């Protein structure tokens, strides 16, 4: 599970840091830091954070996770 933040869009509202503090952090008042990879335990929090972003700058990618991304190869 991966995520990317479009830092050109990010305006430092920090909603993601409140909702998923183990994945996102503020350095100083505005610079956003984030872990581009996160594990299952953080999934709900990351979903909340991405949806909450007031400028919709967070993209979450599940393509490396067979149950949610592309259908696993069958047979």
């Amino acid at each position: 599970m991966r995520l990317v933040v479009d830092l050109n869009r990010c305006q430092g509202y920090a909603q993601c840091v409140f909702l998923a503090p183990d994945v996102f952090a503020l350095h100083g008042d505005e610079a956003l830091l984030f872990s581009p990879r996160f594990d299952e335990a953080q999934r709900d929090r990351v979903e909340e954070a991405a949806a909450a972003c007031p400028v919709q700058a967070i993209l979450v990618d599940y393509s490396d996770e067979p149950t949610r991304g592309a259908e696993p190869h069958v047979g």
Partner: protein
Amino acid sequence: MTPGTITAQITDYANRADPYPLYAELREQPVRREDDGTYLVSTYYEVRNLANDPRLSNDTRNRPPGYARVGHPAEETGLPPSFIFTDPPVHDRLRDTINRPFGPPHSPRFLDGLRADLATVVTELLDAFEGKDQVDIVEDFSYPLPVTAICKVLGVPREDEPRFHIWADALASSLDPRPGGDDGQEKAQRARQDMGAYLSDLIETKRRHPGPGILSALAPDMTPADLEATAVLLLVAGHETTVNAITNTTLTLLRHPDVLERFQKDPDLAVPLIEEVLRFEPPVQFVPWTTALADIDVAGTTIPKGSPVWLMLAAANRDPKRFEDPDRFDPDRKDNEHLGFYTGIHYCFGAPLARIELHAAVPELFRRVKFSGLLEDPPPYRTNAVLRGPRHLPVAIEGLTA
């Protein structure tokens, strides 16, 4: 305000259950002047631009004499306005200070740390549904949770919570622009004083014996008057708005059985669904306390310096130029940059707490309770047009899962 103006219609209780046709009418003229010189702005991009425009003030003392000075305690009280009714640099100084024990960068885990406690409260509230065939979602569920949440944030002892219900009600109704009648304003002033007296005692206690919550953390850094104003603001804002958000989500889901059915099969739908309710039925419908500090040109109209400006968030959230098919409740909507929590420097301070409460409440409510339907639709609404929401939401229930 003269009867017949659109502001009179918006504040008219008869339109409370469904103000959206009025908002659609408003959007036909994105910037509209009322006879008393108030300007209403109702389209998405214009609202968003103005909310981010430093020439628009949240300090109603910038209005000429004769206009309502929302948010400013009468001079004889000696109380300062809370930070929502201030501008930079005072605003930024206060908000940064208050944020220090509340959120990042200094306290990024404070609210996340409340999740387990809030989940416990939700469980207790839902356990009490056992054996009932009808409940009032407002009284029995939406109302108690935010009181507990905000008291935990501030560090107010739980046994004092019932008093806050009464004070918060009186203060919230004072934000409501109503034609005629200062009764609400007087009641609000009294409630503010009573609550203020209680809080200054509590702040003094916290100063001497620090405990959990942000009041203890802030006591050394703020004047007692500023801290008291902040506590009042957070209590009022934490109550009414979150109550409405939880209730509106329940109401909207029960009105959309197709979405409800999907949600029950796929609890992950909670995340986009909650954001869509914040667009579709925002708990703060409009912001009637801004003032132009200079002549501002918006969409071909000049708003003159000193004019009261109402930013119509609920109308902007249904602007077809921004949201496709805006009157449709659609949790699959992409790019949902709604204005439910406002935008710019006054973006809702409590938004993350509200979201944490919604995520604690909504999925668990619909996982555990089997609903048979609304008992009244539309439900009875509170009088408030700004902090709009049902006063009661009676629903029939068939059962409760553990």
